[in-house]
């Protein structure tokens, strides 16, 4: 990763961590659009319990931590970390590597040399 891309990624990750770890405490706890409509139209009664309701991060709070703010914040931070690692791992596994690194995009074709040199 070039030095500058690394900075962007780190800054972005920091923002994500702050949002999930801190700002999320202030998020609205009202039911989201789907749940609201489900309640109003009466199909929420079909809902079944989640199979993994007992997991340590269920409901975005870290089990065993009593303080609400800390519990939610830590859950958020763990979630951001987990998605970052998984997302990065998949991207790295799937990416084009090395010699055929240049993207086969229209803009690149337009920018090839006059002699039509292969990229």
């Amino acid at each position, binding site marked *: 990763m070039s030095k500058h891309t690394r900075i962007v990624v780190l800054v*972005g990750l920091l923002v994500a961590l702050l949002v999930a770890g801190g700002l999320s405490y202030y998020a609205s706890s009202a039911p989201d*659009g789907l749940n*609201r409509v489900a309640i109003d139209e009466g199909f929420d*009664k079909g809902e079944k319990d989640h199979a993994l309701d007992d997991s340590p991060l269920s409901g975005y709070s870290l089990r065993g931590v009593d303080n609400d703010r800390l519990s939610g914040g830590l859950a958020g931070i763990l979630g951001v970390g987990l998605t970052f690692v998984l997302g990065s791992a998949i991207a790295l596994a799937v*990416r084009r590597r090395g010699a055929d690194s240049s993207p086969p995009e229209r803009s690149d074709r337009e920018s090839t040399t006059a002699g039509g040199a292969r990229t």
Partner: protein
Amino acid sequence: MHVPDGFIDAPVSLGAGVVAAAGIAVCLRGAHRELDDRTAPMAGLVAAFVFAAQMLNFPVASGTSGHLLGGALAAILVGPYTGALCVAVVLMVQGIFFADGGLSALGVNIVTMSLVTVVVGYLVFRGLVTALPQSKASIVGSAFVAALISVPVSSLAFVGLYALGGTTDVSLGAVATAMVGVHVLIGIGEAVITAMTVGSIVAVRPDLVYGTRGVAQELELRPSPVSA
């Protein structure tokens, strides 16, 4: 818009799971074309950012909140195939670790919140960017509109799946009207967040935004003053 277990019956949930799996397979191949050493790090960041943003429910109406879905944003930042994968990763982490979104509804949720939002969002974005004069403002404005439209369309995809396999007898017209109504409001929030995020990255590093491909010449890409 996470669907819990029990809303959609088993056959339709399974069918949606097959569609989701096929979609992911297509996206894995497409992402191979979109990602290289330079752009791969952005994918992890996009997934992390969408996860974080989805925790920030904002009020949209009395007793109702909404949150970013993120498909349009992801598609514009890292490309549609990679973007859909990012959102799918978020949904899987949420379903498995956070009990947000039913496990049996994972297919449904991936179809509506990853595949539909990305397809709609990216098509609208590309259509607008192609039609408008090439500039940073066009990119940001197109991102706004693409994100705005992607959300209610995604909610209609849910209604369609509910029509096929919903477990409670309800008036589909009433559900569709209510869903679109609230998700237009949520779409406005999505549009604002998407435009602000795309705008701030385009301002400093347009080369890291997939959606600028084809308009790069107009965005005055200059080497950073700190030489690489």
